């Protein structure tokens, strides 16, 4: 028996001298798997036009009804997307989302995919509803790049620009706007602020 014990001790000693495999998250991050289903991304074409054409098929495919698409007509002189319509508002309730990826499968233009981001916890419930400004792929000079066949490349971050966009994210607005912090009603005082997107129920998500 003593020999077995000694063998076991030798093994654990050997393990002790090996380098620990711990990744010190969040300081160290491992890349997610290529097909990881994290928070959604709304993609653009290479010329900066949005792929989303506001068809609402993703909202219809969603089994929990967490997607809201507010479509609008494209201005032919200054289009947002190649089709007739584009998504003026695009909101996803991440508290409800089950990250099944059906929206990505339903999308005819491959506008929405599930991305690598997975750190989605927040202190404020309202901020877990992400809007188009957060979902949309970054674009450095958005106003210019809107035009068809622009050759401007994709950017890294869109901070500072989204505040002027229609479906501004309450999260970014909260962090960026001093006005919101001081003057306007706080969400916990008078309910959610007026610009927070309405979350539709599964019944409403049925194709009309």
């Amino acid at each position, binding site marked *: 028996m003593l020999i077995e*014990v000694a063998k*076991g*001790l030798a*093994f*654990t*000693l050997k*393990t*002790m001298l*090996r380098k*620990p*495999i*711990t990744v*010190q998250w969040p300081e160290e991050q491992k890349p997610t798997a290529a097909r990881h289903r994290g928070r959604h991304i709304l993609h653009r074409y290479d010329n900066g036009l949005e792929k989303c054409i506001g068809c609402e098929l993703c909202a219809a495919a969603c089994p929990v009804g967490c997607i809201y698409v507010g479509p609008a007509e494209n201005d032919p002189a200054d289009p947002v997307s190649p089709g007739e319509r584009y998504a003026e508002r695009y909101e996803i309730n991440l508290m409800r989302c089950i990250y099944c990826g059906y929206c990505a499968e339903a999308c005819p233009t491959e506008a929405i995919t599930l991305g690598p981001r997975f750190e989605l916890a927040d202190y404020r419930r309202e901020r877990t509803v992400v809007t188009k400004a957060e979902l949309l792929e970054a674009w450095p000079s958005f106003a210019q790049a809107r035009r068809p066949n622009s050759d401007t490349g994709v950017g890294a971050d869109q901070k500072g620009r989204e505040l002027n966009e229609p479906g501004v994210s309450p999260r970014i607005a909260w962090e960026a706007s001093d006005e919101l912090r001081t003057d306007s009603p706080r969400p916990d005082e008078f309910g959610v602020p007026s610009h927070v997107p309405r979350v539709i129920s599964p019944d409403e998500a049925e194709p009309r």
Partner: protein
Amino acid sequence: MIANFSDIFSVGRVGEDGIVVIMVKAVVVLLALATAAAYLTFAERKVAARIQLRIGPNRVGPLGLLQPAADAVKLLFKENAAPSGRDKLLYLVGPALAGGAAIFAFAAIPISGLTCVGGTVVGDGCNGGYPFHWDLIHVNVSLLFVLAVTSLGVYSLFLGGWSANSKYSLLGGLRSSAQLISYEMAVAFALVGAVILAGSLDLEKIVLAQQGAWFVLLQPLAFLLYFTAALAETNRLPFDLPEAETELVAGYHTEYSSMRFGFYFLGEYINMVIVCSIATLVFLGGWLPLLPWIHSDWLGGLVGVAWFLGKVSALLFTMMWLRWTLPRFRYDRLMNLGWKVLLPLGLVNIVVTGAIVAIRAS
């Protein structure tokens, strides 16, 4: 009256400590043991982590070194949840005894050799100067004293198990008392061989008798027996049956929370220190240096303290190492090992040692 106070425990003492010296020593021992117990939990977690290829606690303070402090604060601030059907007095006596007995036992453990402040050591006494013993109470049967006081710890386990009015606690308490009583014999028999060789129960004299050769070389079997039994005595894996999580939740301290639980924890880890201290003193030459040329007289007993602590730490590490290597014994096999293997081997060791000593003496 105060002048004679220290006489109570100073049987066989050369010179005499005043009450101030004793109190200073007591405070030092108390604080050192509490700190040691706290950092043993930290060391245990680090060793466990490295064996499992993890890093272990590293968030609180530099390298996670303040983790024990954070744990202590957490324990102190937790709610003292207690079962309503408990025996109110005994429920409190249990943890108090667990911590108290463990700390008390350390009083008679010499951590270094006799130092004569302003004199020189002659034999086991001083020629002038102040004789400074590196223990709290110098008893000439200190080994017996330590064994007796650590045995008091059984009461804490049993009382804690019984008074909580919970079946898991009771079963855990029964298991631990049975285990501790069984292995107490093995511990005692393993130590007797060394006592025969040294011809004394005084831990200081036992260490001094090892100046030629450590008793681990003369009594390898006894050392093995002692260390095995000591693991069982301290409820460590592979003999941690009293708190087998899968069967008994947490054993005798299931119904304890907050600092009451903390005291059991404290007692458990201080018991580890004591068990390793005895092993060091009786088998590993205590404060005697392994490399004679590193030992120096001008630093007096402090070098001895360093040697003693080094050896104790090595043994403590071995205990943790064993814990994360071996699986738990089944209860009947535990009893078999204690009564049918360790005890007979201990008896054989005593007889053989005694015979050899008798033959050489005649």
